[in-house]
């Protein structure tokens, strides 16, 4: 037993050992394992996302190639012209109908008021009306039976006509009685001052109200015609419209001529479009077959079992690939270029002439705005008509679609059209714009509120207020986003729209709002969701400003406000910016609320209204993923497009988090 002399620093052996690990190293590996697991999961997510998402680009490229090969691109050039023509025609039509309707605006308003009021009274007097109707129907039935039995020659056996006739008299008296009650009840209900507060756009004078009330009271449920007053109103409207139509006869003729000028183009497009669609269908079918065959051949290559390989090969053999004769099929487009030239030249001449005839300005604001829009669109249409023919001449169905522009076509595309019978467009811009617009609104609201609240709570409020405000703000975080979305639909949307319809707010851009669900609504809700995040983090940042700074400042004779503005906020600035960035990350990644409240319109919002764009409905990147992922085929181009959106979102979030960390890091070094 000559064990080496143990030195005093020899490691003590742990009595508990598993697999040669003592307690300490087990703990070490446990925590290390957890950390690496997180990293592995993150990398897997990234790889998976990237793999699916990046496959989008080849598919998209191939799709665009087919779009060109089948002549759809050619047809869409023509469609663009037709669309622009319809847009201009639409403005002209709106101008015309604006003038026509304006002539009888008052009467139409009265009719609306009449309908609203009758509806209300119907609700008020439903019981009396029910009684009246029952009696009325009983009476009708009885009269019908009497008629019946009178027409039958020998029907006197079972039916007592005399008794029935007596009954009819009784019923008629009762009906008159009920008619009286009903009218009395209506008169009473109309005395309620609340009845004068109508939603209708015009306010009624006393006589107008009395006339309408009279018409409503005297119109019983059995009345076959409207009350004379209402009939008169309708007549006046018709007369005035007729007069207006006569007055604006010129505009109407111009409108008709304008529309007619576009018809030859549409007639030209019709068959071409059908032809292109058929070609595309053939191309897609051929493509699917080719892919199937390739898959079978690949399967045969990989199969170990010779029997199965033979099976695969046989199956592959059975598939006959169709070579689509694109050259031949596209000939029709080349043949029609001259026809198109003839059509558009004629159209240009017509439209130019018409454009100079149309009056410069209208009577009503509706007409004025629409006429000025018409004047903006018309030159655009004319240039388009002038240039398209050259584009068509330069077009070749077999020019390969370059790869890079196909990638750009995703990032700059203005249309997101899926499941279309024509061609699926994957344009990222409308969704990205929607997300960014909503986030901007949310940030503009969040930042002052949450940073202000953080400064107040941290620097000014007493502990009693702190103990009230902090938990309340943090409690907001506990509201599930679906509940907030519901609130946005049910309450906020309606309220916002009602506010936007206030007359004295009409100067606000975008007011009155057309839609209840829009950028503003979603942005406000998201701001509400982000406020606790930003508030809590900003408050932390303010808290981290050393007390000695504050004391030093106060000891130099600075006021509380000076100290806050010159020492505390600058000291916490990077923390506050990081808080705002993290809030932004939360906003742009939020799904439920935007899906419910943003309005779901997948088109690029119209920025011509300036800031009023925030009252338009949009769709977002997150929203579209949530909405469409459930119904796409795995591996389809649509599926991959959604993944690509996901990856873009992920990159944005990553970037935001990274910058936030960078900023915080810098800020810690400064101290």
């Amino acid at each position, binding site marked *: 037993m000559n064990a080496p002399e143990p030195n005093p620093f020899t490691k003590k052996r742990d009595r508990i050992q598993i697999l040669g690990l003592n307690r300490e190293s087990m703990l070490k590996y446990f925590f290390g394992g957890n950390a690496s697991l997180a990293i592995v999961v993150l990398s897997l997510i990234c790889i998976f996302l990237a793999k699916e998402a990046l496959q989008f680009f080849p598919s998209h490229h191939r799709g665009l190639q087919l779009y060109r090969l089948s002549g759809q691109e050619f047809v869409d050039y023509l469609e663009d012209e037709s669309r622009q023509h319809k847009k201009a025609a639409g403005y002209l039509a709106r101008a015309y109908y604006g003038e026509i309707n304006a002539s009888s605006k008052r009467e139409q308003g009265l009719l609306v008021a009449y309908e609203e009021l009758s509806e209300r009274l119907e609700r008020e007097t439903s019981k009396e009306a029910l009684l009246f109707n029952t009696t009325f129907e009983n009476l009708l039935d009885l009269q019908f039976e009497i008629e019946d039995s009178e027409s039958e020659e020998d029907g006197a056996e079972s039916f007592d006509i005399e008794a029935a006739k007596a009954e009819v008299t009784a019923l008629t008296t009762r009906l008159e009685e009920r008619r009286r009650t009903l009218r009395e009840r209506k008169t009473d209900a109309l005395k309620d001052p609340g009845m004068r507060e109508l939603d209708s756009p015009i306010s009624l004078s006393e006589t107008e109200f009395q006339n309408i009330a009279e018409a409503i009271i005297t119109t019983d449920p059995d009345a076959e015609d409207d009350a004379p007053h209402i009939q008169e109103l309708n007549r006046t409207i018709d007369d005035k419209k007729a007069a207006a139509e006569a007055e604006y006869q010129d505009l109407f003729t111009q409108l008709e001529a304008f529309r007619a000028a576009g018809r030859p183009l549409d007639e030209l497009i019709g068959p071409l479009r059908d032809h292109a669609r058929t070609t595309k269908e053939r191309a897609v079918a051929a493509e699917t077959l080719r892919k199937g065959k390739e898959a079978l051949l690949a399967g045969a290559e990989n199969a170990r079992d010779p029997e199965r390989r033979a099976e695969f090969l046989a199956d592959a053999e059975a598939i006959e690939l169709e070579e689509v004769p694109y050259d031949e099929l596209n000939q029709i487009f080349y043949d029609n270029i001259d026809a198109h030239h003839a059509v558009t030249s004629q159209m240009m001449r017509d439209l130019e002439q018409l454009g100079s005839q149309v009056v410069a300005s209208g009577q009503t604001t509706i007409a004025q705005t629409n006429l000025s829009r018409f004047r903006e669109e018309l030159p655009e249409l004319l240039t388009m008509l002038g240039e398209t023919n050259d584009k068509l001449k330069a077009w070749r169905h077999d020019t390969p679609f370059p790869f890079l522009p196909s990638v750009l076509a995703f990032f700059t595309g203005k249309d997101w059209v899926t499941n279309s019978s024509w061609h699926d467009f994957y344009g990222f811009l409308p969704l990205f714009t929607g997300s960014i617009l909503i986030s901007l609104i949310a940030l503009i609201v969040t930042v002052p509120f949450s940073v202000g609240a953080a400064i107040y709570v941290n620097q000014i409020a007493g502990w009693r207020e702190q103990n009230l405000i902090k938990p309340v703000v943090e409690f907001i975080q506990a509201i599930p986003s679906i509940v907030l979305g519901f609130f946005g639909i049910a309450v906020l949307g309606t309220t916002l729209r009602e506010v936007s319809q206030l007359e004295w707010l009409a100067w606000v851009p975008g007011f009155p709002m057309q839609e209840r669900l829009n950028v503003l609504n979603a942005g406000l809700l998201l701001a509400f969701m982000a406020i606790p995040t930003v508030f809590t983090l900003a408050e932390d940042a303010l808290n981290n400003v050393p007390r000695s*700074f504050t004391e030093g400042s106060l000891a*130099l*004779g*600075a006021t509380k406000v000076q100290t806050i503005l010159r020492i505390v906020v600058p000291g916490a600035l990077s923390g506050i910016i990081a808080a705002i960035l993290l809030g932004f990350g939360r906003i742009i990644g939020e799904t439920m609320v935007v899906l419910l409240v943003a309005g779901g319109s997948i088109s690029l919002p119209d920025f011509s209204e300036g800031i009023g764009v925030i009252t338009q409905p949009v769709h977002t990147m997150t929203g579209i993923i949530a909405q469409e992922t459930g119904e796409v085929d795995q591996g389809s181009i649509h599926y991959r497009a959604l993944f690509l959106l996901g990856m873009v979102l992920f990159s944005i979030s990553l970037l935001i988090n990274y910058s936030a960390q960078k900023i915080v890091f810098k800020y810690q070094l*400064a101290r």
Partner: protein
Amino acid sequence: MLLENPNSSLMETPSLEEDAVHTSPSDSGESAPIIDIEGVDFHYGKSKALSDITLAIPEKQVTAFIGPSGCGKSTLLRCLNRMNDLIEGAQISKGVIRILGTDIYDPTVDPIELRKHVGMVFQKSNPFPKTIYDNVAYGLRVGGLTDKHGLDEIVERSLRSAALWDETKDRLKDNAMGLSGGQQQRLCIARAIAVQPKIILMDEPCSALDPIATMRIEKLISELKSDYTIVIVTHNMQQASRVSDRTALFYLGELVEEGTTEQIFQNPDKKETEDYISGRFG
């Protein structure tokens, strides 16, 4: 109120200076005391930190507060520029403190204005995370001075008075956090004197510094004495004896003894004082 002209009367009525003329009932033989503490009790919430302190601090002299930890030196010091106002529940429950004859706890006194007259240097140096120049100019700027030349002049003079000019004149635009601990503390002194207070309170200004930096600050204090009244809290007996003219010894919130430094250190009246000074205490 924020941007008051610093040359106008610095306090709300009654002005410190004016009152000093007709309220100076001092009979100490020398000049009237600039700070006059009379029977002050101080509470943090329910706990009493100072009881019945009466002390007169003469002008343009260095007064040292000494005593064991927790005896209330800092508390008394912070009463003098009302920094205790920031602590919830802290208050003077009895007695008055007069500075230049004005009761500084009078409701008409604005603590912001008071602090422009009574500067403070903290135990742990606390320069703001700004440039050296901005640190010194801070008190002037919050007082409403924006004139560039005036600021330049005062910043230079303050840094010179704090014996920091030579080291920093080429790096005024550098962040003050890059200075050494001793330089930072001198910067804080420069910052305090830039607003030209009457009184400078120093709470253990050298406790985190090495002997050489401490010496420089002590030398600085002796120089500043000709212009300012200085009250310094210290745990270092030698330091107290070296820099101060008068010394006050506190124990458990009470003033044990107070007098010229010479007398306290050489010939104390009380047994406790002798014990504390010679280190035989507790």
